[in-house]
């Protein structure tokens, strides 16, 4: 029996799972609190102590989002163009984008960047052969600061050497890679993504003390969001003889954020539609920092709006829950992030928060179709991805996984439940639930044996 031990060191829990690779079977799983502040191995050992036979595993790999995750600052020129391209590269690498800057960095921006304490700075700006002045200015600003994190230069190739020179002369750890937007609105984020991941492996893991796990396992090999994205790609595209599911979305509703991944071209599904704006990545990840079930519950509630929340409670047949009551509950969730609903009323409040986190996160992820009336008749403009034809929406995160009716939460994604008719949200996808918290593990396993990883996902993801 060939075993693989796959570990997700999360910000709260360290989750361990053991798989039998020949039998395509989950043989056991366990979790314990993450202890990265003191020594990450304490929590890991505790989690492993409840897992029989892990020592025999041939592969022992981990991903991590502990110690703040992989914190990145993205810098570009125009907000909708290179700054957005840099942001997408950072998100695609599994990073947490602390902030995105555009145009020339000011002294005030620099103060801000110092306090944000990122792990990596991603510096872009200008198409190849295009604007050089801005990225050179920004390189000088970074060079003149006492920031010591690695800087990745992924801007105008005609300025790259000069920019690299300015940063290196000032003693900054500098890496050059291809431009994230080599031609106008053409996205090229793969090289930057790859480089971010290498720096994560070589530097950030040590810096965060995550390399201590090496005494027990082979090591931490990627940030958790990158593992989930990898799993989603594999599940959509398939591997060799093993077919994938086709275009899909993965929605992860967490305590602090809601992540949405789409693996789909997003091209216009109707004829005669003009596609505008920055090219969309086939594998796209967005993160909503204000939409979460616990820590971000108050900001989620304010994004929903109190009137809309009350209306939805009424539609569910709970018009008797007073505003004071559900607002008190929402505040409680913010403070006591471990809280689990104790009765049906609390459960419906939690469910509605979850459904709306899904709805709003999907609304921000998908593109929109605008109709413009011209002298030649109506004309359609699409911005972003058309995900109306998505076949599968896969849900993960506590509110979905531990729910009696995960379909109620995931239905927030549907076109008919969006409040805006122009949104290109999924129309009639099938829903699946990641009941065994398998996705991150499957992303890790995909690095070794993609075919087995795919078969595991197909076996354990549960249709709703």
């Amino acid at each position: 029996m060939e075993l693989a031990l796959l570990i997700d060191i999360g910000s709260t829990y360290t989750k361990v799972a053991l798989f039998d690779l020949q039998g395509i079977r989950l043989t056991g799983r366990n979790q314990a609190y993450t202890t990265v502040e003191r020594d990450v191995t304490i929590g890991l050992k505790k989690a492993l102590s409840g897992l029989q036979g892990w020592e025999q595993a041939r592969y022992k790999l981990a991903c991590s989002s502990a110690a703040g995750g992989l914190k990145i600052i993205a810098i570009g020129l125009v907000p909708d163009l290179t700054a957005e391209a840099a942001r997408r590269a950072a998100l695609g690498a599994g990073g947490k984008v602390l902030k995105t800057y555009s145009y020339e960095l000011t002294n005030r921006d620099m103060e801000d960047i110092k306090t944000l304490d990122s792990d990596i700075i991603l510096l872009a700006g200008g198409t190849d052969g295009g604007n050089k002045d801005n990225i050179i200015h920004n390189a000088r600003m970074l060079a003149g600061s006492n920031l010591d994190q690695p800087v990745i230069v992924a801007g105008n190739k005609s300025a790259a050497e000069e920019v690299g020179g300015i940063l290196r002369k000032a003693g900054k750890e500098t890496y050059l890679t291809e431009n994230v937007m080599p031609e106008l609105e053409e996205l090229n984020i793969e090289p930057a993504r790859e480089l971010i991941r290498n720096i994560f492996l070589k530097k950030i893991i040590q810096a965060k003390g995550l390399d201590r796990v090496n005494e027990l396992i082979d090591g931490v090999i990627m940030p958790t969001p990158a593992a989930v994205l990898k799993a989603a790609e594999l599940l959509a595209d398939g591997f060799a003889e093993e077919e994938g599911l086709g275009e899909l979305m993965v929605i992860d509703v967490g305590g602090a954020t809601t992540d949405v991944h789409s693996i789909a071209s997003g091209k216009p599904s109707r004829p005669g539609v003009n596609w505008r704006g920055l090219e969309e990545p086939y594998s796209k990840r967005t993160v909503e920092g204000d939409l979460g079930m616990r820590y971000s519950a108050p900001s989620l509630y304010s994004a929903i709006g109190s009137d809309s929340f009350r209306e939805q409670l009424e539609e569910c047949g709970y018009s008797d829950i007073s505003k004071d009551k559900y607002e008190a509950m929402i505040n409680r969730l913010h403070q006591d992030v471990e809280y689990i609903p104790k009765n049906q009323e609390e459960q419906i409040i939690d469910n509605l928060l979850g459904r709306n986190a899904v709805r709003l996160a999907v609304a921000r992820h998908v593109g929109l179709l605008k109709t413009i009336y011209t002298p030649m008749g109506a004309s359609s403009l699409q911005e972003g991805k058309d995900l109306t034809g998505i076949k599968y929406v896969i849900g993960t995160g506590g509110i979905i996984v531990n729910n009696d009716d995960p379909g109620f939460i995931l239905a927030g994604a549907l076109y008919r439940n969006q409040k805006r008719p122009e949104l290109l949200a999924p129309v009639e996808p099938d829903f699946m639930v990641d009941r065994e918290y398998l996705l991150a593990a499957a992303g890790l396993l995909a690095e070794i044996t993609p075919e087995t990883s795919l078969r595991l996902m197909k076996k354990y993801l549960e249709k709703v």
Partner: protein
Amino acid sequence: MTAKPIVVLGVIGADVHAIGNQILEHALNDAGFKVVNIGVMASQKEFVNAAIETGADAIWVSSLYGHGEMDCRGLREKCQEAGIGDILIYVGGNLVIGKQDWENTKKLFLNMGYDRAYPPGTLPETAIKDLKEDLQKRGKSRWNWPS
């Protein structure tokens, strides 16, 4: 220096006329320019953003459906706000509805801050010749044009 001068090209407003846009792209390419074509139904903001990121030397705006005055007004000011106020901006096409006196129309667009305006039926070569001259006047004669 072998870098080509860069022209941002597009059809402004709600205008979907794509053929002239393609012809201009070919003509500019053949004349040795790098063309950044933002296509039809382009907004002023898209012209400005494209010109900033690509470090463009000129913006070429087409308008063929008669709403040119409404669509084109304010582009120069937006460029000024965005820090590329001295970029060359040309406009051409069926800029106004009906048979109006061309000289008046031309004056209207020059007053809006366009460096050059062209009536319907202008050959691409005419405007390309002007562009080369304008760039040379600005000291940008370093390019070796293909003969």
